[in-house]
């Protein structure tokens, strides 16, 4: 993505530039893959980076733009992963369907996974939204753990052993397509009247309520959309790895996405992309350190939070993820001095 000033660009380039950039990026990657400069391992890391971008961007909608605390996001991901995997491996037996039917089945699986996650997102959202701040965070944490425990109990989908033999339909094209679609959708959503309502709730819920915004409705909506995207991301994850088990969607995974989000900078889609991509690649780069890898990763993470606590990107956006309404960005997200305790 380019960082040239949006105002000086030709309108047509401004409109179709990002699309063109994505196509060029895709072609370059595919050529490098053909030439074997990018081997299968690099490709795998890139696919996971894409899934993590989806997860982080959806978490950003809830935490960064609506100001709610969701710390059990991996729960939605696991629902989506299992939903999609059940459709592709159990309902339509993946090895017995013709080649042409594979892609529709895959998309149907992703859709079902997303819908399951969104419905559960609404179910958990409605009763728990009367809780505020930390208590909401704790309910989402509990939700993630309950989903994990229940998935371990259901034997037809493998119980604690997990599901194997999921077809690996999710190649670079699909991951890239969904990342671009999601970022485009989230950008447009955030700058619509819905997005302004989300941001108003984040900045001051009481004031938003007083201005006639139905805060409950918008909070549930934000939860639902984020859960849907997380469900789709989970479906993609299942079809990249072709193996899923309940324990891989525990609190550790949710904490990973929180780390990506806040290290990249919450309240900025660019931050989500940068945070997810950088922090997916970093542990792989550090692999030569063997057991010291996670120690260094932890130190880097703490250092980033201490010296740049607004995140690496810190509430800024690249031009293509920003719509002209610059007034929304006048105030930096973390510019205000806040007392940790009187925040509520």
């Amino acid at each position, binding site marked *: 993505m380019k960082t040239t000033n949006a105002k000086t660009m030709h309108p047509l380039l401004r409109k179709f530039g990002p699309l063109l950039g994505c196509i060029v990026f895709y072609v370059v990657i595919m050529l490098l893959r053909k030439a074997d400069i990018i081997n299968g391992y690099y490709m795998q890391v890139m696919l996971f980076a894409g899934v993590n971008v989806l997860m982080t961007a959806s978490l950003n909608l809830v*935490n960064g733009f609506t100001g709610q*605390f969701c*710390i059990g996001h991996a729960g939605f991901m696991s629902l989506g992963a299992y939903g999609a995997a059940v459709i592709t491996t159990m309902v339509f037996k993946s090895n017995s369907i013709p080649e042409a039917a594979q892609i529709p089945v895959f998309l149907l699986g992703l859709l079902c996974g997303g819908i399951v996650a969104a419905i559960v997102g609404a179910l958990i959202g409605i*009763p*728990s939204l*009367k*809780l*505020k701040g*930390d*208590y909401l*965070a*704790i*309910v989402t944490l*509990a*939700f993630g*753990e*309950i989903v994990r*425990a*229940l998935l*371990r*109990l259901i034997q037809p989908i493998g119980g*604690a052993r997990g599901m194997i033999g999921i077809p690996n339909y999710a190649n670079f094209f699909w991951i890239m397509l969904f990342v671009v679609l999601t970022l485009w959708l989230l950008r447009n959503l955030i700058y619509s009247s819905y997005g302004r309502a989300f941001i108003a709730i984040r900045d001051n819920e*009481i004031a938003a309520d007083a201005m006639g915004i139905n805060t409950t409705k918008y909070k549930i909506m934000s939860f639902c959309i984020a859960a849907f995207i997380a469900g789709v991301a989970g479906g993609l994850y299942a079809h990249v790895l072709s193996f899923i088990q309940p*324990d891989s969607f*525990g*609190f*550790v995974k949710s*904490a990973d996405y*929180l*780390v990506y989000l*806040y*290290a990249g900078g*919450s309240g900025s889609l660019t931050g989500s992309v940068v945070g997810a991509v950088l922090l997916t690649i970093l542990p792989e780069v550090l692999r030569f350190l063997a*057991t*010291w890898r*996670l*120690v260094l*990763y*932890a*130190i880097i*993470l*703490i250092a980033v*939070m*201490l010296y740049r*606590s607004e995140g690496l990107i810190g509430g800024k956006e690249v031009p293509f993820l920003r719509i002209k309404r610059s007034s929304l960005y006048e105030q930096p997200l*973390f510019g205000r*001095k*806040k*007392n*940790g*305790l*009187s*925040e*509520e």
Partner: protein
Amino acid sequence: MSFCPPAHLFIFTGMEAIALATILQYLVYGLQLGSVYALLALGYTMVYGIVGMINTAHGDFLMIGALGTYFIAKLFDSMSIDGTYPMLAVGCIILIATVMTGGIAVGVEAIAYRPLRNKPRMIALITAVGVSMFLTNFPRALPFIGPNPRPFPTLFTPKTFNVLGASITSTQIIMIVLAAVTMLALDRLVAKTKIGAQMRAVSMDKDAASLMGINIDKVISITFFIGGALAAVSGICYASVYPQVEVYMGSWLGNMSFVSAVLGGIGDIRGAMLGGFILGIAQIFATAINSTFGYAVGFIILIVILLVKPAGIMGKVTIEKV
């Protein structure tokens, strides 16, 4: 990193004949597990009440306490006779481990949390995740500690008593009494002493407390010291009844004690105690039915209670002023 209780924790699988003795026996195991949760939750709740942050690294203080005890006991090896230590040596070991863990907690606060005190609390939470990752992986990477579980030395030789058909050991009695006494002492400390008054003042309004001449840094350091020391005690208790220590033991225990603290109303000392015991007992009884369900039941109770009482059992709902 596993967040699931290890299998050796729960000895009962499958429904056995419900007799009074069986129920009593489960109750003893529940209280034993509950006292570990309660001791850990006390530290959680105090840190939350005063600094307002969820210290996800708190469970790792338990691990450091237990591992530290293991190594200090190794140092005192020459004093042991047939694998048992004299009372004085046990006292020394526990004291050193507790003070050391408290010191580490104070250090963590000074390095990682103090600079972020005025930032949004999610930032502190992410830093705490980083600290937790560091505290788990640093001992794991050290060649003389490593990831393998180690047998915990026997500090107390347990005597077994028989009450109405259920057996209870002296270690279990010490643990349960210790948890209750610590809770009472902390409650009195916060309510009656000068440092307790300072803690309450900092908890209420840091800026105003600072203007009244309270050294906020000192009060918060003391809070972290108490929290770390209690975590170490709870780690020693846990390792005495389930005699195995490893670097990952802190994560799921930390999670469960966090749930207990919230269940009782986070920030409330008596609530943390109550939450810990409720959770421990519920978990043991649910595990008797199904081992996976035993892990989930804590979270189910938590959600049900939060929906009925949004601030936990003992917590008070604060009304936001505009």
